C-alpha cells in the first residue's frame, strides 16, 4: 500500500470552501473523507473519471470539500442520482457517500434495488447510529436502549444490519469497517472501486457531540477506542471463544462475488436491438 500523506489529502480539498470544515470536533466524517482521498490517490486515477454523489446529512457534506466531479443531491436519493450518472456514463467511477438514515430509511428502496440490479457503484455508508444533522433523532441503526432526541427513554425499535440487508438484496461486494481502522478501510475502498458490480462498505463512525453525549459514551478518543475494542475481524471469529464475541461487531469482507453487471446487460440489449433492426 502506497504511503499517502496529509499533503496529498490537502491537494484533493477545495480550498475555496471554508475551513476548518463544518463537522463537530472529533466527528469521524473527516477521518473517513481522508481515507477515501488516500484510496483514490493511491490508485493514481484521473479525477475527471470519478464522481462522488451524496444525499443529505452530516456525512453527505463530504462532496463539498473534495475536488472531484461532485453532486450533492436530495435526501435519500443519492443512489438514484448515481444510477443516472452510471447508466449515462458507464466508464465513470461512481462513489456514493450516504449516512445510515439517508441510505436505509429515506433511501431504503433505492439501496435495495440498486443492490438487486447489481449496478457498478461504490456505496460508503457512514453509520453513526443517529440522524446527526437534524438534531439527533433515532435512525434504523440506533442500537437497543440507546437514547436519542425522539427516544429519550431508550430506543426499542429493532435495527437494520446494513450488511445482511444488502446481501439479501443481492449486492456483490459487502464489507464493514470502522473509522478507526483506516488502513483496512482504505484497502476495502480500493477493492470496492475496482469491483465490477454493486459494492457497499458499512463504516462504523462516531458522533461524539450528539450520540456520544446523550448516551454517555465519552469524548472523541473514548469513542474511537470503543471502535477498536468492540469490533472483531471476521477471519478471527472462528478462533475466539463465544464469550469473547458477545456484544462485538464483526468487521471484514462478507461477500465478494462476480455477477452480471447492469450497464453491461443494458449495452447488450441495445446491441441486440440494433442488430435486429438492421435486418
Amino acid at each position, binding site marked *: 500500500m502506497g*504511503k499517502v*500523506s*496529509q*499533503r*496529498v*489529502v*490537502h491537494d484533493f*480539498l477545495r*480550498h*475555496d470552501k471554508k*475551513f*476548518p*470544515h463544518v*463537522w*463537530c*470536533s*472529533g*466527528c*469521524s*466524517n*473527516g*477521518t473517513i473523507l*481522508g*481515507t477515501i482521498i*488516500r484510496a483514490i490517490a493511491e490508485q493514481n486515477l484521473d479525477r475527471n473519471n470519478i464522481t462522488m454523489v451524496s444525499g443529505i446529512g452530516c456525512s453527505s457534506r463530504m462532496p463539498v470539500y473534495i475536488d472531484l466531479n461532485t453532486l450533492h443531491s436530495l435526501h435519500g436519493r443519492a443512489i438514484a442520482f448515481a444510477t443516472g450518472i452510471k447508466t449515462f456514463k458507464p466508464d465513470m467511477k461512481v462513489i456514493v457517500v450516504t449516512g445510515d438514515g439517508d441510505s436505509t430509511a429515506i433511501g431504503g428502496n433505492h439501496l435495495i434495488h440498486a443492490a438487486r440490479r447489481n449496478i457498478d457503484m461504490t456505496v460508503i455508508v457512514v453509520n453513526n447510529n443517529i440522524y446527526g444533522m437534524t438534531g439527533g433523532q433515532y435512525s434504523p441503526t440506533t442500537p437497543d436502549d440507546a437514547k436519542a432526541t425522539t427516544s429519550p427513554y431508550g430506543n426499542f425499535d429493532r435495527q437494520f444490519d446494513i450488511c445482511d440487508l444488502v446481501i439479501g438484496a443481492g449486492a456483490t461486494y459487502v464489507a464493514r469497517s470502522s473509522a*478507526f481502522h*483506516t*488502513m483496512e478501510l482504505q484497502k476495502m475502498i480500493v477493492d470496492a472501486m475496482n469491483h465490477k458490480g454493486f459494492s457497499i462498505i458499512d463504516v462504523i463512525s462516531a458522533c*461524539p457531540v450528539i450520540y456520544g453525549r446523550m448516551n454517555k459514551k465519552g*469524548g*472523541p*478518543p473514548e469513542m*474511537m*477506542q470503543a471502535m477498536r475494542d468492540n469490533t472483531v475481524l471476521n477471519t478471527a471469529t472462528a478462533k475466539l471463544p463465544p464469550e469473547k464475541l458477545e456484544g462485538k461487531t464483526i468487521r471484514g469482507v462478507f461477500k465478494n462475488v462476480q455477477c452480471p453487471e447492469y450497464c453491461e446487460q443494458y449495452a447488450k440489449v441495445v446491441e441486440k436491438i440494433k442488430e435486429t433492426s438492421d435486418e
Partner: protein
Amino acid sequence: MSQKVEKDRTGTIIREEDSSEKMTVEVNEVKTTGDFDAPVYIYYNWCKKCGICVAFCPTKCLARKADGSPYVKYPEKCIHCETCDRLCPDFAITGAKDKKGGAYGPK
C-alpha cells in the same frame, strides 16, 4: 509570501504563512533530534482540539496544551508512523515522511 518566525518557550518554531492561496496555516514545526530529520506540522487554524492524535500516538510524543490543542512534547520519540496523520478528522497534523526522509509539510 511573507513569513513570520517566532520561537516559543519549548523551542518549537511557530511560523505563520501568508500565501496568495486562501489556505493560511499556522504551523508548529518541530525538528526531531533522533534518527529522523523530519518535522511534525500542526495546522492550528484547522485543529478542533478533539484529542484523538494525542490519545492514539503509539510513542506518546504528543501532549495537549492548556487549551486542548496538541504539541510535540518529545520530538525525539516520533517514529513517523502516520497514525495522527490518518486519524485526524480535521486534516490538521502530519508527521509522515516522504521517500527522501523529509516530512510532508505544507507546500
